[in-house]
């Protein structure tokens, strides 16, 4: 599923769209507020769905070869996150949906778990 379709599925605003984002095909996702949990065998190219707002979300994405992050509950995304995302080429989206709603909509649309465990 491409970025535009992900955004449409959860009515998300694309806050920063990385240059290479049109090539991205996302099939899996991981949803957690603890990056410690995201770091556990998340497959490269998955989507991170989180309510955690700090730059370590982008760093976690960078380490895992993840190209897109979806922040939930319409939280304000500080400039420090957007700047790091621009530098690391990570697409940033924001939805008003809750974690449960975002996961449910994406799952219904065919996105599967990005973690094998």
């Amino acid at each position, binding site marked *: 599923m491409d970025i535009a379709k992900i955004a449409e599925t959860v009515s998300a605003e694309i806050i920063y769209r990385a240059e290479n984002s049109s090539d991205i095909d996302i099939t899996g996702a991981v949803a957690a507020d*603890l990056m*410690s949990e995201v*770091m556990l065998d998340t497959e490269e190219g998955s989507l991170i769905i989180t309510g955690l707002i700090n730059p*370590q979300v982008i*760093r976690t994405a960078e380490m895992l070869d993840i190209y897109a992050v979806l922040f939930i509950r319409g939280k304000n995304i500080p400039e420090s996150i957007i700047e790091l995302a621009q530098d690391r080429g990570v697409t940033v989206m924001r939805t008003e949906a809750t974690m449960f709603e975002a996961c449910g909509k994406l799952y219904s649309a065919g996105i599967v778990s990005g973690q094998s465990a």
Partner: protein
Amino acid sequence: MAEISSMHIECIIDKDDFNAAGEASSKVKKSLNMLGIPPKTIKRIAVAMYEAEINAFIHGGGGKAVADIYPDRVEVLISDEGKGIADLDLAMQEGYSTAPEEVRMLGFGAGMGLPNIKRNSDELDIDSAPGKGTRVKMKFKLS
């Protein structure tokens, strides 16, 4: 692959800059990318090093990251002068965490860091004692 025999990277892990924690791992990841190392191998190294770097920040009060990249392996040492690990066997258990609530508010401290470092490294040696700081030595094969 570039014609070099080794590459040495050293970074301070600043105890006062949470936003910068992970920068050492990022530098190493970029270098490995440039050297044409397979992405799956780079991901293992980046994940293990980042976990250790975050640990040095949240538990160790900052410290130092040193990475040496050789043609056949990568060696990483993350050291801090923090409070140390009282019971290493316990700390290696999945889910065991001494992290306070503030750390979980930052998105870490699930008690999975050390087990995840072990899973992603080929050799792991942790030298720590209460009050003596912690040295996490990791080796990764490049072949």
